[in-house]
Each structure stands twice: as C-alpha cells, then as structure tokens.
C-alpha cells in the first residue's frame, strides 16, 4: 500500500478515530513503517503547517492534528527500534510559585507537545523545589517556566538558583515566558531562552537542543 491519502486527510482533519484506524489498516497490510511515518503522518503535518501559515487553519485545528498524529504514533512507536525514534526532548513546564495563570503555559505545552517534545506539566504555583525535583526525576532537557505577574517573576530566578544548587543547572536548558517577562529579564537571571509566544517557544526550544 503506497497511498496514505485516507491517513493524511484524517490527520489534517484532526479525526483521531479515523486516523488511528487508517494507521492500523496500513500496519495490518504490511506497509513500511518509515513510509507510514514519512508519507502519511509527516506529510500530513507539513500540509497542516502550510495551511496554518497561510491562515486556512487556526490554532485549535493545528493542535488537533498534532494530537491525532501522536495517537497514531502510539501504534507505530513500539515497532521502531529504541534509538530510531527518539522524542525531541523532555520538557518540565509549569507556572511559577504563587502564580495561578495557566492559559499561556498550557498553550506553550500543547504546541511543544504537538512538535514532538515529551511534556511533564506541573501545573500552576510550582515551587523552585518542585521544578528541580521533577527535572531530576525525569531527566529533563528543558525546564520551562511561565509567569503572568510581575510580582512572581523573581520566582524564576529562584528556580534557576535551585537548579544550580541541585547541581543540574548545566544539564538543563531554562526557558521562560509570560506577558511581563522580557528578553532582558531572561539574560539578567541567566535563563537560556525567552519566547514571546507559544509558536516562538517551540522554535526556541528546538534551537536550545539544536534540533530541526
């Protein structure tokens, strides 16, 4: 079977049920794994990216397509060798201590997940200690913090200090964002990266880990 039209269409539509069924059919028919991935799923996501950048698709649709692709990947992943299909990177994300705003953080998490990162979302009001412990526990590549209150921004600095104290600062990259956060602030507290919105957060994360 060389035609993945049904699969690509389902991914573009964000129709999880159909896409998963199409993937299963392809597998059952003995299709080449790399083909399902390249000509089916990735080809679909390329079209999604194209449609998004020309304004034909909106963010919720794009996120749905990414989610659909992930569900299909669940079927394919176990069949690949361990190192053939590494995830892009492990990200521990949360809104900093005493801050309850989570809409922006959730968007960043969704977009990163859609782009293939493995996300551990700690939610809101996350203490420096919790960020650090979780980062150690999962072996995070990136610690991503969001703050929406100018008054909770200092918790970002404290979290970086906590990572330092735990001896893992050089093992993780730190990314920050949120309406009052600025590029200047990021360099002031020695974060590795700042992103002004969810789309650029994905680009920044890829850059941090030198992946395309």
């Amino acid at each position, binding site marked *: 079977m060389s035609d993945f039209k049904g699969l690509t269409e389902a991914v573009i539509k964000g129709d999880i049920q159909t896409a998963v069924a199409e993937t299963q059919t392809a597998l059952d028919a003995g299709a080449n794994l790399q083909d399902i991935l390249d000509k089916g799923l990735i080809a679909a996501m390329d079209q999604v990216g194209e449609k998004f950048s020309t304004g034909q698709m909106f963010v*919720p649709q794009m996120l749905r397509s990414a989610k659909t692709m992930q569900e299909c990947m669940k079927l394919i992943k176990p069949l690949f060798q361990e190192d053939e299909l590494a995830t892009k990177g492990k990200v521990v994300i949360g809104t900093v201590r005493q801050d309850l705003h989570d809409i922006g953080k959730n968007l960043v998490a969704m977009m990163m997940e859609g782009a293939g990162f493995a996300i551990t979302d700690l939610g809101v009001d996350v203490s420096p200690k919790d960020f650090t412990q979780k980062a150690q526990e999962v072996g995070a590549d990136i610690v991503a913090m969001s703050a929406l209150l*100018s008054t909770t921004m200092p918790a970002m600095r404290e979290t970086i200090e906590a990572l330092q104290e735990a001896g893992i600062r050089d093992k993780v990259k730190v990314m920050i964002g949120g309406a009052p956060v600025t590029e200047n602030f990021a360099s002031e507290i020695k974060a590795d990266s700042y992103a002004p919105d969810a789309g650029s957060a994905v680009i920044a994360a890829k850059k941090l880990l030198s992946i395309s």
Partner: protein
Amino acid sequence: MPMRLPPYRPLSPEDVRKIDQTSRRILERVGIRILEQSHLNILKAAGAIIDQSDQKVRFEAAWLDEILARAPSQFILYSRDGKNDVHLGKGKVYFANGGRVFRILDMGTGGYRLTMLRDVAHTATLVHCLDNISLYIIACQAHDLQPQHYHLNDFYHALNHTTKHVMGGCDSREGAEQMWELSVFIAGEEEELREKPFVSVITNPISPLTIDGNTLDILSFCCSKSIPVTCAPAPISGATAPATLAGTLCQMHAEALAGVAICQVFSPGAKVLYGAVPTTMDLRHMEYTMSSVEMAIMNGAAVQLAMIYDFPIYASGGVTEAKRPDIQSGCEKTFSNLMVAMNGADLIHLAAGMLDSGNSISYEQYVIDNEIIGMINRILSGISVNEGTLGFGVIEKVGPGGNYVMEDHTIEYMKEEFFYPDLSVRCNFDIWEERGRPSMLSRANDLVDEILDDGREGLLDTDLILEIKKKFPGIQNL
C-alpha cells in the same frame, strides 16, 4: 439627566431564560471546584452538596435560590465626602477605571516602563478630577513597594489622592486586613466603615469553574466586615470557556452566581456585585483578545443575566489591544463601553485608562476615555421632549429665513442640550494650524499635565496623615 430605557438588548427574554437554566444545570450537575477543605466544610454545613473526591461543590436549585435571595439588590459604594456615592441597583450607569496593570506608556519619554507607587497616586488624582469616572480602582502594581505592606500602601496613597470610592484587588487575607485596618482608622470607627464603606475588594474565580482558597479567604474576611466585594469570572471564549458566545455566557453566569451565593453563605446580606469579565481568544494565532466586538456583546448580555436576579453588576468595557491611544483604541473602547452602558450596567470597570489587553495604562488614555464616557452619558440621557424643547414658540418667532443664535430659547437650553468635549478638535483648519495642529492626544497630554501639575495631594486631613503614619509605620512616602 436621567437615563432612559436601554435601547439595545443582545438576548431575547427566551435566550436569557435558556442561558440561566443551563447555568443552573452547570451548578447543579458539574459544580464548582474549591481547592480548600475548610471552605468546603463551611459550604457543606450551609447545605451545599459536596463531592469530596474531586473537591467540588454543587448547588441544588432550591438551595441556590434560598441562598441567592439573601443578596441585596441595591447598595451604595460610598465616596468619602458624599459627593460621588455610587448607587448600585438604581438603574444608573457608573464607570470606573481598570486595575492592576504592570506597565505604563509614559508620554514624557514616549516609552513604556514598569508602574510605581507614584502612578497609583497620579491615576487616583486623575480619577478624582475626571467627572465621568465615578470611582477609583487601584490602577497598577507599585513595583517600588515590598510585598509585606503592599495593600496598606496602595490603598493609603489612593485614599490620599481621591475622595471617590476606592476599589482594589488584594493578594491575600492579610493584605485585605491591612487595607481594612487603615480604612477603619480613617473612618474613625469600625461601625462607621461598616455603615458607609468607602473601599471595596475585587476577586476572581479561575475559569472554568474553580475558586482558589486564597480568594475565598479574602471574600470571607471582607463579607464579615461588610466591605463590598465582587468575585468576577473572566472566562475566555475558545480557551477557558466554550468557543460560542452563548456557551461562554452559560459558564460565566454559573461562576458569577456561585460567587454571589458563596458570599451569602459567608455573611447573609453581604454586599456583593455580580461580576462579569468575559473576553475572547483570536483563534487564528491564539492571541488573547480582550476587546473583541464579541466581548462587547457578551458584557451587554451579562447585564441582562444579572438583571434576572436583580443583582447589581460589575461588568467590563473600555478595553483595547492597542498599545497606544490611537484609532484602534478609540473604536474598541467606544464599542464596548457604549454597548454595556446601553444595557444598563450598574458599574462598568476597565472603562478608563487601559491599553494593551489590560497589561498597560497611560495617563492620556484616562482623560480620553473620560471624554468618550461623557459622550456615552449624553447618549444615555437621550432626547428630552417637552413643551419647551419642542420649541414651537421660538420657531414661530424666528419664522422662515431667520436664525436662532441670540434667542432666549438658545441661551436657555444650550448648556444642557449638548455635550461639550474638552479634547476633540473642533476648530477650523486655519485656527488648527495656528494652534500648532493639536490632536485629541496632544490635548490629552496637555490636560494631564494641567491636572497633575495642580497636584491635588493630601486629600486626607494633615493631622490624620500624621496619625496614620504613626500608627502604620509600614507606609512609604511617595
């Protein structure tokens, strides 16, 4: 001039009923998540249904009605000098500025900077001097203050720069207590403040359908002291609420009713405003959009929803995504302020000063918005039709071909019939050139300088100021 019948209603009576019923179903079946056991216990003791496993409180219809019936349909947000009392629930529309931004567009430098304590004082002075803004909301974060005496300071400097009612958010119960102790001291007696509260407190649930324990601590403290409050939901269509206006309204109405109900459990008869801050997301790129035209429609509809229960409403209008006072800010602000006002909201907050999706303010925007609100007030007062205004007598007297410039009738009516703007440029072209080509913005800038140069500081009595500073050493000077 008295307000006439509101001329625009986004919802039909049938729509209102359907939304209300859906909200009540949400409260009964889905419930509100409350993240603090002690509050769940209080609600349980009062008769609410508690789902212990997922920390949810549910409101059975008959119980909800019984609790809501305790809420007052009218009360007053007092000014300190009695000149600007805000009479809620009397069919009059009042406007307030917006609160707690972190950034200001500084026209002196043309750039943005973090807000400071002096900006609290200056914005309070502006509101004090601007006739169409009826009460002051603590406008910004004072980044030069330490957290421990935060609300002692922002309320003190606000109260020292305006005699109008002062409303503000408090970060914690301790913060609310500081604010209350200061206010009692200024009032003279606790009873005095209880009778005529000149301060009030803003809180918010977390949409969808969640209320934080800290928020409930603040509410329960304020209600016990008879300090008016609101617990105003801020659902965002397409992000934290359904991507339909009706769906967002159903969820918002449920959250707002829950806020009112919980306050009535804390203190029966508590002075609480039904709150509404529904906004939207631009789903093309997920840009938060506070000032969409749908926001204006939903806030208008929220007034209709509050009215079914006869609760005074704290609604929203006057926001913009624009980063400077410009064409976009002018039209976005006008749409929402006008629409919400035409629906008869008791209090429209965010109505003045805001820029940049609620993240920034500018002093100039305060005076510009004051003028927009002046025009809206003029629209609300409508066309007065009576024997005198019909003017048959003067029409007969002037007759065909004459003019009305010097007539008694003109002189009698000219002041009250028309709204006279301070900022709009109405001079002719040549004069405009002669005056250096002013614009609404340049004139706003001049007016701000004039008001702030006058420096109406020290509205509290000098002796009182000294006593306050002795009693509250945490107060910082400007």
